[in-house]
């Protein structure tokens, strides 16, 4: 089991490691699961100290918790030339015509 709502951090178990790896599209050997479980557990135990910080209003949360606020920036609705398709595709391992090819997706 892992941390509860109060943030009391506990170890992360191997099934959680596998689930998280799955979410991140990583395949792990058993050895790796064990390795990451060990290290992630230690880290999560350490960060459990954050539990003592009072939670603030949801409305306060955003990325700009810097010592200053970022000002909004917007761009005029004007077009610029797009990339040549050859250039767009030049780094791709597998292409077909001017598309990027992937194994067949079944919907």
């Amino acid at each position, binding site marked *: 089991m892992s941390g509860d709502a109060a943030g009391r951090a506990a170890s992360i178990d191997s099934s959680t490691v596998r689930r998280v790896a799955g979410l991140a599209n990583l395949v792990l050997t058993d050895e790796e699961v064990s390795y990451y479980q060990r290290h992630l557990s230690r880290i999560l135990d350490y960060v459990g100290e954050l539990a003592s910080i009072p939670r603030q209003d949801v409305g306060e949360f955003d990325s700009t918790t810097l010592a200053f606020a970022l*000002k909004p920036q917007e761009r005029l609705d004007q077009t610029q030339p797009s990339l040549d398709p050859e250039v767009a595709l030049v780094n791709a391992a597998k292409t077909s015509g001017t598309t990027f090819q992937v194994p067949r997706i079944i919907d």
Partner: protein
Amino acid sequence: MSDLRPFSLSAAEISQRVHAGDISIREVADFYVQRTEAYASKLNTHLYWNASNIAAQVKDQESKLKSGLKLPLAGVPVLIKDNICTRGVPTTCASKMLENFRPPYDAHVVERLVAAGALIFGKTNCDEFAMGSTSENSAYGPVRNPWNIDYVPGGSSGGSAAAVAADLAPVALGTDTGGSIRQPAAFCGIYGLKPTYGTVSRYGLIAYGSSLDQIGPFARTVADTALLFDVISGHDRRDSTSRAIPPFQTRNGLGTADISLEGKRIGIVKEFFSAGLDEPTRQALSKAVDVYKDLGAEIEEVSLPSLKYSISAYYLIATAEASANLARFDGIRYGQRQEEAGATLRDVYQQTRSHGFGTEVKQRIMLGTFVLSAGYYDAYYAKATAARRLISTEFTSAFANVDWLISPTSPTTAFRLGEKIDDPLAMYLSDICTLAVNLAGLPALSVPCGWDEKGLPIGMQLIGPPLSEEALLKGALAYEQTAKHIGSRIPQF
């Protein structure tokens, strides 16, 4: 002919002499090509460099010079950390994932350097995707510290730092998310500046922790640090987090810098000085503080209790952002791809990512994925953000009473290659002095201030309020002109 000798040239001097016709861009390039050929492999600082590419650039810059353009970095070789995009030239982030990736565009900072007359001299080695503190996490071998090649140069920008320390180029760019410019600067005995968040465009910087990352300069003089920072700073419309300000002109300010620090108030951050400092570091910092006292500054102790949360806040926020930033690496549009016969889409994703990312990167991706996953956001990510706000607020209050803060850049000097690589948490804990600065988005400069008994460099960190780079550089200059460290020793490798 060339009287060019190692460790004798600064970027400012090169540019000035090139403009004066004293030396040619070609001569400068040849000199540094030789240095690179001789030492880059040994130190493993470079991931890419190409003599004919450099020759072509030399031609371009020579004709710009001839046409009468004023070029602040005329003929100056600059090395670029390999997580910064350079058009048509491999940009790998020291990862297998991007082994042959050639971006179709230049980063903003690269455009600025080239416009200023610089030669993009190569791409430097680093920790994979900038995740690490020793440059041992590279898929292409670790970087070595020129002061002792069995020791780490620091990270993640170890290649750039080591190269400048070894004079394979007079200046270089690194990136700093939690200390990745400052700490290698300290370990390598040079200057490293992490600018105020938003003063240097991140367009073309392959993102790790988007709200923490900044590109900054390495140099062996304060003047060069200022020169490079001026060139790369300023608004870029392609980066929405880029501040709407013109490029800095700190260089101008330095010329008239007076040594006296009468009236300046310097804060010693109590929490950084109790963090397991080794004895040489403690002594070097103490001596440095004395220098500032003698120059007339008022020293006072400052306490920022929330700093104790820095490591936790940093590692949760940075990895959360990184887990999203690295989701685009899936083998479909760029980067290497692992696809066996009969593979499904999910196979391609999983094999590509498992094969392409190294251990530390995977660990951070998983940590970040976990803290954002359903049911854990509040306990981890939200709390980390709250801690971040506390830290930022405390810094702001501190700066109401002092002009800048001082701390060691790192609690210890460089350690041996392999010494900490098996203990990620211990590695994270060694960043205690630098992380909080990124959380608050402040500018900070690492200043060389001595060596330990092994001959390894020690760095002190000057932290200032937002946009105070010029003041920090002046403070560093005052120190340097008094203590006279730089150039008093050179690394043997």
